C-alpha cells in the first residue's frame, strides 16, 4: 500500500523540525564565530530559552507569542550581565569560560524544583510547528545576508581578520562583541523555545557540554564563510544519525569517523567560499 503523504511527513516530522531548530542554532553560533569569538554558550542560552518559554506556557498559562518573547529576552539579559567580564577574554579562555557558565546554568536548572529539577518539564503543549520554524529560519538567513553585505558585516569581517587593526580603523570592538553575544543568545533562546514546544519534554541535562559541542560542530562542518554554512552543517549532522541507523552498534563510531574525515579533508568546512560584498 502506498503511504499517504501525511504518513510520510508524520514519520519524518521530528527530523524536519530538528533541521530547522538546529539551523537556527547554527546561525546563533555563526554570529560569534564570524567575528572570531569562541563564545560557546549557545547550549546554555538555548536551555534558558527553552525553560523560560516552557514555564511561560506550562506553568503560567501564557500564550505562545509571549513565551517566544520571554525565551528571546531572558537569554539576552543573561548575555548582557555576563558580557562585560567575559568578553575581555579571548580564544580558548573565552571558550572555556562559556563552557563553565554553561555547566553552572545546567546545575542551577537541575536543582530548581519549580522547573522540575532532575525530572524536567513534561507536558509542554505543541505550538508553532513546521511552517513557523522554517519561516523564522529563512527570515533569519535573509537578515544575515543583508547585514553581512552592509557596513556592519564589513566591520565584523575586519574584526575576525585582525581585531587590533579593526579597532584602530574605528570599529567599536567591545560593543560589537557584546552585541554579537546578545544576538547569539537571543537566537539560541528562540531555538530552545521552538524546540521545546514540538517535543513536549525538556530536561536540564539536554543543554550541557554535549549539546555545546554539537552546536559547534554545525559551524565547523559547514564552514563559517557564510551564514548558510552552519545551516547546512546543522542539516547534515541532524540527518546523519538517522541516515546511519542501519549501522546499529557502529552508528556513533561511523558518525565520529565521518566528522574526522570531513575535517581532515575540508578544514575550512564545506561551504568555504566567502560572501560577495559590494566594494
Amino acid at each position, binding site marked *: 500500500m502506498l*503511504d499517504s503523504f501525511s*504518513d*510520510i511527513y*508524520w*514519520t*519524518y*516530522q*521530528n*527530523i524536519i523540525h*530538528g533541521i530547522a531548530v538546529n539551523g537556527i542554532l547554527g546561525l546563533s553560533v555563526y554570529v560569534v564565530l564570524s567575528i572570531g569569538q569562541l563564545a560557546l554558550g549557545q547550549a546554555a542560552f538555548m536551555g534558558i530559552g527553552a525553560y523560560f518559554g516552557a514555564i511561560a506556557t506550562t506553568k503560567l498559562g501564557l500564550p505562545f507569542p509571549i513565551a517566544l518573547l520571554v525565551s528571546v529576552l531572558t537569554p539576552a539579559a543573561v548575555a548582557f550581565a555576563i558580557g562585560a567580564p567575559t568578553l575581555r577574554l579571548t580564544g580558548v579562555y573565552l571558550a572555556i569560560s562559556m563552557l563553565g557558565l554553561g555547566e553552572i546554568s545546567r546545575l542551577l536548572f*537541575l*536543582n530548581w524544583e519549580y522547573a522540575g*529539577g*532532575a*525530572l*524536567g518539564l*513534561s*507536558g509542554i503543549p505543541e505550538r508553532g510547528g513546521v511552517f513557523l520554524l522554517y519561516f523564522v529560519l529563512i527570515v533569519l538567513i535573509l537578515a544575515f545576508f543583508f547585514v553581512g553585505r552592509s557596513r556592519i558585516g564589513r566591520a565584523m569581517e575586519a574584526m575576525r581578520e585582525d581585531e587590533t587593526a579593526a579597532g584602530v580603523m574605528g570599529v567599536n570592538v567591545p560593543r560589537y562583541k557584546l552585541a554579537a553575544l546578545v544576538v547569539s543568545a537571543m537566537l539560541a533562546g528562540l531555538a530552545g523555545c521552538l524546540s521545546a514546544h514540538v*517535543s*513536549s*519534554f525538556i*530536561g*536540564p*541535562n*539536554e543543554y550541557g557540554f554535549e549539546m555545546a559541542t554539537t552546536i559547534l560542530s554545525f559551524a565547523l562542518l559547514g564552514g563559517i564563510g557564510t551564514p548558510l554554512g552552519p545551516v547546512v552543517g546543522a542539516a547534515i549532522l541532524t540527518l546523519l*544519525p*538517522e541516515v546511519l*541507523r542501519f549501522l*546499529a*552498534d557502529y*552508528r*556513533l563510531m561511523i558518525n565520529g569517523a565521518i566528522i574526522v574525515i570531513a575535517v581532515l579533508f575540508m578544514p575550512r568546512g564545506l561551504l568555504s567560499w566567502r560572501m560577495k560584498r559590494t566594494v
Partner: protein
Amino acid sequence: MRIALVGVFAAALIGVAAAQTSKEPIKLGAIEVLTGPNNRYGIPAQRAFDLAVEEINKAGGVLGGRPLALAYEDSAGNKDQAMNAARKLIGRDKVTMILGPTLSNEMFAVGPVVNDRKIPIIGTSTTATGITAIGPWVFRTAMPESDVIPVTLKTARDRLGIKKVVVMYANDDAFTKSAYDVMKDSLAKLGVETLTTETFSGKDTDFTAQLTKAKNLNPDAIVVSGHVDAASGIILQGRQLGIPKNVRFIGGNGFNSPKLAEIAGEAADGTLVGSPWFVAKKDEVNQKFVKAYKEKYGDDPDQFAAQAYDTMYIVAKAINAAGGTDPEKLREALQGTKSYGVMGPFSFTEGRDPADASGVVVLEMNGGKFRIFGETS
C-alpha cells in the same frame, strides 16, 4: 456459468489471501538504548525480548500460527533519536505496538506522540512518576519505586529497629530523584528521622565528603538512591572510612544488580534492597527463564531483562485476547490482561501500572549474592 467461474476465482483469491495473512507476522517495535553509556539498561531488555519472541514463535506464535516480528530502533539515550525511532516504527514500519523506550526521560517525549497516534506503548523499565499519566495508550509493566521502597523501608524499620537514617541520592537523574521522593515520603510516614540529606551526581566517583559527614552523625542506616556505579562506590568508600558493619546500606532499585557485589566486594554484605524480582527466586517459571537466558547469552539476567521477558508474554496474551491487531481492541485487551510471569502474578491497574505488588521481596547481600532478607540458608 460465468458467474460461477468468477465466484470460484474470487474464492480462490480470498483463500490465497487468507492463507497469506494467516502466516503473516505481527509487527512489533521496540525502542531501546543499544549504544552509548546507558546501553547496559537497553541490551538486557533486547536480549530478553529476543528470548521471549523465540520461545513464543517456537510454540506456535499468536492468533493461531502468526509469528511475532520485533523491530528494534536504537535511541542511544537521546531524546530526539527516541522520537525519530517512534515515528519511524509507526509511520514507516507500521508496527502494532511499541515496547520501551528504556529511559523515563525518553518516554516523556515519546509517550505523548505515540499516545496521540492511538498506538499502545508499554514501558518496561521506566519507573519515574507520571509516565502512565501521559495518556490512555501508555502502559507500564515496570513496577514503580512507590510500590517497592515503602516495603523495603518498613521491613528495615520493623526487623532492625531503625530509628534514624542518613539519606543520599543522585540528584541529576529523573529515576534516582523520583525514587528519592518516594524514600522521603516513606521515611516520614514510618516515623524514621532523617539526620541529613546529601546529594551527589550519578557520574561522581568520590563520595568521601558526604560519607564522612554521615558517619559523624551516627545513623542506624544509610538510605541511598542511585544507580549501581555510584552505589558500589558509596558502599566501598563508606566501609573504607570506617562506617561499621551494623550500619547497613539500604537501596532503591538501582542496587539490584550483580555488579554491586562485583565492585564493592565484601563491603556490600548486609546491604538491603527491595525488588519485585531477584534471580534466585525459586518458582519454576523464573528458574526456567534464568536457565534459558544464561544458556543463550552466558550471563545471568537482571531485572531489566526479567521485566522485558514478562512484558513480551503479556503482549502475546493481549494479542490473542484481542483476536487481531485492531488498536482499540488491543488496548482493551492489554488493560484486562492477567498473567503469571517471572515477576509473579501480573495485572494492570486502571491507571495502567502494575497492580500486583505481592511479588516484592526484600533482599540482603551476602557473600556476593542476594538472598531473601531473613533467610539464613
